[in-house]
């Protein structure tokens, strides 16, 4: 059996046709295309996508600054070298790079000031989702 996933954005398409007072049809009629949207660029599975705000400088060398909004997709399987949102028990949410090396799994900061965290039996870590994009407002 194969699953076909309908594109949820289809439900959101608004139909509009241009209003022309005197009856001259617009020369662009029939050529309309959907306007670009950041949602389409950054989000592939809207139902499983959440936004998270970065606090601190632990990922500064990966160009993620405090105040940046991370786009997090839960539906993806986290792979080696992905930037992930993880939950560390008794510590909270953290954004780090997932590194798998010689049978071990680490959460790597992108800042030499911080030390990597090894995911082991001594520390409960759950990978919450994969960061698929970063959004920053300039104003």
């Amino acid at each position, binding site marked *: *059996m194969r*699953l076909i*996933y*309908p594109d*949820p954005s289809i439900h959101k398409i608004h139909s509009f046709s241009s209003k022309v007072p005197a009856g001259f049809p617009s020369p662009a009629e029939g050529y309309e295309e959907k306007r670009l949207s950041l949602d389409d660029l950054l989000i592939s*599975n809207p*139902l*499983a996508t*959440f*936004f*998270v*705000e*970065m*606090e*601190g400088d*632990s990922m500064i060398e990966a160009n993620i600054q405090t105040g940046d*909004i*991370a786009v997090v997709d*839960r*539906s993806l399987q986290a792979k080696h070298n992905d930037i992930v*949102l993880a*939950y560390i*028990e*008794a510590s*909270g*949410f*953290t*954004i780090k790079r997932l590194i798998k090396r010689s049978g071990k799994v680490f959460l790597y900061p992108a800042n030499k000031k911080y030390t990597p965290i090894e995911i082991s039996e001594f520390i409960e870590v*759950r990978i*919450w989702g994969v960061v698929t994009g970063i959004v920053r407002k300039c104003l």
Partner: protein
Amino acid sequence: MLMICLCDVNNAYSSFERIFDPNLEGKPLIVLSNNDGSVIARSAEVKVLGVKTGVKFFELKPLIKKHNIQVRSSNYALYADMSDRVMCTLMNFSPEQEIYSIDECFLNLQGFTDLENYGHKIRNTMLHNIGVPISIGIAPTKTLAKLANKIAKKGTGVLLLDTEEKITAALKDFPVGDIWGIGWQYERKLIDAGITTALELSKQKESWILQNFTVQGLRLVRELKSIKCLDLELFPERKKGMCCTRSFGKRIAEYSELLEAVSSYAAILSSKLRKEKVFATQISVLIQTDFHRKDLKQYNGYKTIVFAEPTNDTREIIQYARKGLDLIYKKGFEYKRAGVMAMNLTDNTAFQSSIFENIDRNKSKPLLDIYDTLNSKYGRGTLQFASEGLDKKWKAKTDYISKKYTTNWNDILKAK
């Protein structure tokens, strides 16, 4: 064979809270009703402690301390969004879906194969993509799917009843009172007649059932015997009425505060009407004193106002609601609850003029569009009518509410 799947989010409100606060995992958690009055949802750990839904919050305080039970006010903005995500994700697994409640839906799995694995696949997808545990019951009828779901909850999360033997085994130990559609009155009647399990009920003569439990009971028994009597309702009927009824954070006696509350509820109701693109032809206004406080004077006021013309204009509905309130308000009572209900909804828009001299209906649409857009973009209350009041001292308590993680930019998760 027809195969119906019932998907049900386990302890939905608790599970939704835990997605954004994983620290709550494994801890007893309760969610309180509007106004933090009583328990409306419990995590599995709380159910084990014997806490029932509906228990007053203040009565639970010793137990909360003893077991370190975590408490949350109900966060409907969050639950509604998470429910949408759950339902739309589930929609991808079947061509036909009936959304039954905020946390349950039926899927039509007719023609699908390897159903047990498919059930696990649905369950794993929900756990991974959304972060909620769900239970799945798959059976030839809705009633059996519900029953299978209840059993699945105690086991591996998925139960498929696709053979006579499996169905009989499931019905054998299933208490008759837990069957979908059997209320406590029917349960008592059945137990008095010596029928305690679903299997015993399914073996009763149809004539006896019909005589004692009407045609509704007969349908239910047939469904237990794998005879389909209930179809999936794919296109929900339009609501016949809508309401906004709430308890206040404190008892209020002043007319002015009551008017603010009733105006606010009328405004919320009007927004709901416009969202559904319907018009009300009448509203009922209701005010109640605190019936838990037997030592105080009690009074319930209720009045229906029929409109000159159908409307969903906030300004008109607030004026009608005020008219209703004026007719039922009595001085000298302390009120605890009020509500505004809209009845006889219609989608008729063939009218133009307002009966209120100060309202020009031609200007209604642009005005209300701006009102609705601002309030949906920046949160309810961004733009409001003066009669709703500014400080809203009567507003319901939500002392333990979590953040609107998915509907408000100021409330999103933070990570270091």
